């Protein structure tokens, strides 16, 4: 069975264990990515990781497949991604510009405010200094006290003008070591040190210019306010004592931040809408294009399934409409051509059938006339008598040829009907064998039947099965060279099989499929000593096909051949295997003879002696009129490769060496000459519908 499994039946494909094709690219792509980048080296090594990877990959597969198969999805997704990018870019630019505009205005206003404040502070310091000088009291004593007060007043008065629009902070200049009363002050509960960035303080130190920076106002815990963004402008100024201190104006940017976030929110909403709308638009637009394409694809599929009248709907004059028109035109032309071909083929088949029928009436007359003449041949002179014999013989042949031709034309026309009912194949084999006995006796062949102990029942058309088997058995006897012919029956699983084995000349490589071709003859050198129409095996093959069965041939040069008919046990059940191996157990290869070191290709000198008719003792057959007959030499030397052939799945084993048995028969001669000689000696009257190989 295992040997046999490679030999697929005609029309059926062998089963190959293979992963579904569609999944592979996605999987491998992912795999490559992961193995190459993320999990370098680790994936190959660790089965656990590979398992994990597969586990992760599996749920993604449907999505991947959808992605690959759905162009609409791809277009919509890429449109979404790209428009999202554009919207984001646009948003950043717009927001940046809005922020700059807002801040510029604020900074300008703040700067003028701060400048005013700094001037006021300076003025007040100058006034206080003048006042002190007039007073004339001790500077040191008074100053400490006064400056502390003065500074507090200053901060209060400066900040009070702002009404919350800004806060004022003073810090001691780091250059002046003595801090005294010039400590930290701040309005509005601002934490002075935390709110002024260190970098700004350092820049202000030791210069007279004013500087600005962005910061966050941090409030002291008593104020219970959250920190907020702010602009800080600071300058080093002198107090009434002439000591330096740092005065900062802090402008909260709360309003600006609010405006900005409003703009941001608006932009985000608008952007989201734009993206979604673009996605929807893309979906709609793609749908307009994809729908007709999908329709075309569907209709193309139906067309190829044989529904030739399918057409696309065409509306408008756009490109899609043109596609539809072109498609329809193509479909119409296709339909026309197919119809023409069908008509032609139907006409031809009809013609063959008609010719066969028309020939029958005159043939009947001729046949009857010939029989009347044949009956009366005793009274004729020898030449006329012999002519009458030839006439009757060849009319038989003509008749069987016509019958076969008609049968084939019936198959070609699909008019063959199966009348299946349960039959016991043993009965059929018995009938066939008993029918072939007279021929076998003439040939000196014994027909053995093996495997007929139990019933071999199948639903089949007894007439057809009998025809097939008669053909096989008669062929085996004709080509068996007087050796035994074994008919083997078997039944297993859902199939029954009958194999007919002979030990004659066998088949050359490649012939196992060609034997089923119409009018094919194996060896033109072997003339048509036997009758047969050249259609027998073709009809047998068609009969087997009609049953849903197989008819296969195996052969090896010099090793005989085996023809196997396999039928499903019940009609309409597909065949999966055959109970009998196609290559018999006693084949040369199975006996291991080809490995025996014998010189290979013994059959290459095959048929160096042409087949000749030297039969004199019997009623001689018609001298061959086959133009191929006189040709010398083998048509082709057997090549030394056992090939599993397509189509019928038959296999031919090349003849490895001249068989030992053979050499006993014909010393020193090679295979084919011996065969030819045997054949010539055994040429006989043709009988039943058989054929040359």
């Amino acid at each position: 069975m295992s040997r046999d499994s490679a030999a697929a039946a005609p029309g059926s494909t062998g089963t190959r264990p293979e992963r579904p094709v569609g999944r592979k690219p996605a999987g491998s792509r992912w795999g490559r990515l992961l193995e190459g980048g993320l999990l370098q080296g680790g994936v190959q090594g660790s089965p656990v990781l590979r398992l994990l990877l597969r586990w992760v990959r599996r749920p993604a597969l449907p999505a991947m497949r959808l992605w690959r198969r759905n162009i609409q999805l791809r277009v919509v997704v890429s449109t979404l991604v790209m428009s999202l990018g554009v919207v984001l870019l646009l948003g950043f630019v717009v927001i940046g510009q809005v922020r700059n505009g807002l801040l510029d205005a604020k900074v300008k206003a703040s700067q003028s405010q701060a400048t005013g404040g700094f001037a006021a502070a300076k003025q007040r310091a100058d006034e206080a200094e003048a006042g002190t000088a007039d007073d004339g009291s001790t500077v040191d004593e008074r100053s400490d006290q006064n400056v502390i007060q003065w500074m507090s007043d200053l901060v209060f008065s400066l900040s009070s003008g702002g009404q919350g629009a800004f806060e004022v902070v003073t810090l001691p200049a780091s250059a002046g070591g003595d801090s005294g009363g010039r400590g930290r002050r701040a309005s509005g509960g601002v934490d002075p040190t935390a709110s002024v960035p260190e970098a700004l303080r350092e820049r202000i130190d030791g210069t007279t210019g004013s500087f600005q920076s962005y910061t966050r106002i941090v409030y002291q815990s008593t104020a219970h306010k959250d920190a907020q963004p702010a602009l800080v402008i600071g300058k080093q100024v002198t107090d009434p004592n002439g000591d330096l201190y740092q005065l900062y104006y802090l402008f909260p940017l709360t309003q600006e931040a609010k405006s900005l976030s409003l703009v941001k929110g608006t932009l985000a909403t608008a952007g989201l809408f734009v993206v979604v709308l673009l996605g929807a638009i893309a979906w709609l637009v793609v749908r307009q294009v994809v729908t007709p394409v999908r329709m075309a694809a569907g209709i193309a599929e139906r067309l190829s399934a044989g529904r030739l009248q399918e057409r696309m709907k065409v509306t408008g004059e756009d490109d899609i409409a043109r596609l539809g028109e072109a498609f329809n035109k193509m479909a119409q032309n296709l339909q026309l051509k197919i119809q023409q071909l069908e008509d032609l083929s139907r006409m031809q088949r009809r013609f063959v059938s008609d010719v066969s029928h028309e020939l029958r009436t005159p043939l009947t007359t001729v046949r009857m006339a010939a029989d009347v003449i044949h009956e009366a041949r005793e009274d004729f002179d020898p030449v006329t008598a012999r002519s009458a014999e030839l006439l009757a013989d060849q009319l038989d042949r003509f008749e069987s040829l016509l019958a076969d031709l008609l049968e084939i034309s019936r198959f070609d026309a699909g008019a063959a009907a199966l009348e299946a009912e349960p039959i016991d194949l043993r009965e059929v084999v018995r009938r066939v064998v008993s029918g072939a006995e007279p021929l076998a006796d003439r040939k000196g062949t014994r027909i053995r039947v093996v495997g007929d102990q139990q019933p071999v029942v199948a639903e089949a058309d007894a007439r057809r099965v009998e025809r097939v088997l008669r053909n096989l058995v008669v062929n085996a006897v004709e080509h068996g060279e007087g050796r035994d012919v074994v008919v083997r029956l078997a039944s297993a699983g859902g199939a029954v099989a009958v194999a007919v084995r002979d030990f004659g000349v066998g088949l050359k490589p490649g012939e196992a499929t060609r034997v089923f071709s119409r009018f094919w003859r194996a060896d033109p050198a072997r003339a048509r000593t036997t009758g047969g129409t050249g259609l027998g095996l073709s009809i047998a093959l068609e009969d087997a096909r009609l049953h849903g069965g197989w008819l296969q041939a195996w052969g090896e040069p010099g090793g005989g051949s085996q023809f196997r008919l396999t039928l499903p046990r019940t009609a309409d059940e597909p065949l999966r295997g055959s109970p009998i191996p196609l290559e018999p157990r006693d084949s040369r290869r199975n006996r291991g003879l080809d490995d025996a070191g014998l010189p290979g290709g013994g059959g290459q000198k095959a048929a160096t002696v042409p087949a000749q008719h030297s039969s004199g003792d019997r009623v001689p057959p018609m001298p061959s009129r086959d133009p191929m007959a006189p040709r010398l030499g083998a048509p082709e030397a057997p090549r030394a490769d056992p090939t599993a052939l397509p189509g019928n799945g038959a296999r031919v084993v090349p003849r490895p060496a001249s068989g030992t048995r053979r050499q006993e028969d014909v010393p020193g001669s090679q295979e084919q000459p011996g065969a030819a000689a045997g054949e010539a000696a055994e040429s006989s009257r043709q009988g039943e519908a058989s054929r040359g190989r």
Partner: protein
Amino acid sequence: MMSFMKGRVLVVDDDTALAEMLGIVLRGEGFEPSFVADGDKALAAFREAKPDLVLLDLMLPGRDGIEVCRLIRAESGVPIVMLTAKSDTVDVVVGLESGADDYIVKPFKPKELVARIRARLRRSEEPAPEQLAIGDLVIDVAGHSVKREGQSIALTPLEFDLLVALARKPWQVFTREVLLEQVWGYRHAADTRLVNVHVQRLRSKVEKDPERPEIVVTVRGVGYKAGPS
């Protein structure tokens, strides 16, 4: 004994050569052939010749063979053997259903034809007095009559033979092959459709309800047998 079997045979065939050849063969075998080439004239020729058997070509000018067959069968039970070039299912079955007893496919051998004709004529050789019962039917073999409750039922000779064959051995199941041999005289396996069609025809005449036969019972997968009397 065969030589006594003079029989008039009407050949209905438009092919003059074949008709002539048939005439030669039939005369050689001791039959008396008469000929008609046209389907329209076939019935008149039949009435005039009163043949013992009709050889009928299916493809005729004028009325076709099927129609002629039906017309002859309508007024006579004479054996009809069809000559046909087509052995396809439909053709043959239609011919048999229109009343033909047997058919022979062209081209045929003279011996084959003669054997077929003899088989059809053989039955009228020696009727032994015999009374058979099958179901509620009473068969008088010698008198060639079938009666149900005194009412006689008209059967063709072939249908009669078929019924008698079944009735003679009511215990036996006849396969189609056996019936072909006993009734039609085929020695080798032949077309079992002959049996099927004629059993249908017989049933339509003798059964009370042809859908549920009681006289000729089908034994599934084997053949037919006589119903219980």
